[in-house]
């Protein structure tokens, strides 16, 4: 049952990324390239995607938490780390740099795999290697 919920949630997530244009790296780079604000060619679409997602999640989480526990688990498994440390800052900086160089964060990259582009497959292999390597640091 947990897998079924995850499959549905993943599919909704993937559909949202695709509808929002996030599975096209040019749209993402068009947002991060803020220098284009000068000539009116900046693409704010990513901000609409994040804004819509954030609004729904903010309200939805609070409605869900009021129920006390999830349908299929004993309790809510929320992140427990609270410290703002060098791992968080360094990790976010490295991630951001990579995101800005190619226009892929993990979700859109995975959601784009069925197009079977050779370059994207290499990106994903490198991403998984990076994720695995980070566990050893």
């Amino acid at each position, binding site marked *: 049952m947990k897998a079924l919920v995850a499959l549905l949630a993943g599919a909704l997530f993937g559909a949202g990324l695709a509808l929002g244009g996030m599975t096209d790296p040019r749209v993402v780079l068009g947002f991060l390239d803020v220098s284009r604000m000068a000539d009116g060619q900046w693409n704010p679409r990513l901000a609409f995607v994040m804004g819509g997602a954030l609004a729904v999640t903010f309200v939805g989480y609070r409605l869900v938490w009021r129920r006390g526990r999830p349908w299929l688990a004993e309790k809510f498994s929320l992140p427990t780390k609270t410290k703002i440390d060098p791992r968080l800052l360094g990790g976010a900086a490295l991630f*951001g740099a990579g995101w800005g160089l190619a226009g892929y964060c993990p979700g859109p990259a995975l959601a784009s795999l069925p197009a079977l582009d050779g370059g994207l497959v290499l990106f994903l292999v490198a991403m998984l290697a990076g994720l695995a390597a980070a566990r050893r640091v």
Partner: protein
Amino acid sequence: MDVLGWTLGLGGGVLIGLAAVLMMAGNGRIAGISGITGGLLPPGPDWSWRAAFVAGLMLGPVPVGWALGHSPIGAPAVGTGLLVLAGLLVGFGTGLGSGCTSGHGVCGLARLSPRSAVATLTFMVFGVLGTFLLRHGIG
């Protein structure tokens, strides 16, 4: 103004939000893609829901393609060398920083987590810097 693009963006965002809420309501979990994927390296006892989420992520764009009348998946915008470098940075960075655009940027901000707020601000700033380098330096 690209009103259609903004509307589709907002609609896509709503679907992503519903996905995050469903994941919390059903499994009590954050819909953080790097965390869900990282938990499969190597697969542990909870591999099935993680793999199911990733499979769903890849299936989701298909009906959107039918509705739009064209594939929503764009080709990579940069060459192979940059894709590999970017992939390493994205994987290592999200692993080290415990989250990406979904886990920190959507779920974490929705939880009002200070850690996620700092992470989101940081990867946004470095994303802008990375793209600046791409467009005006190495691109």
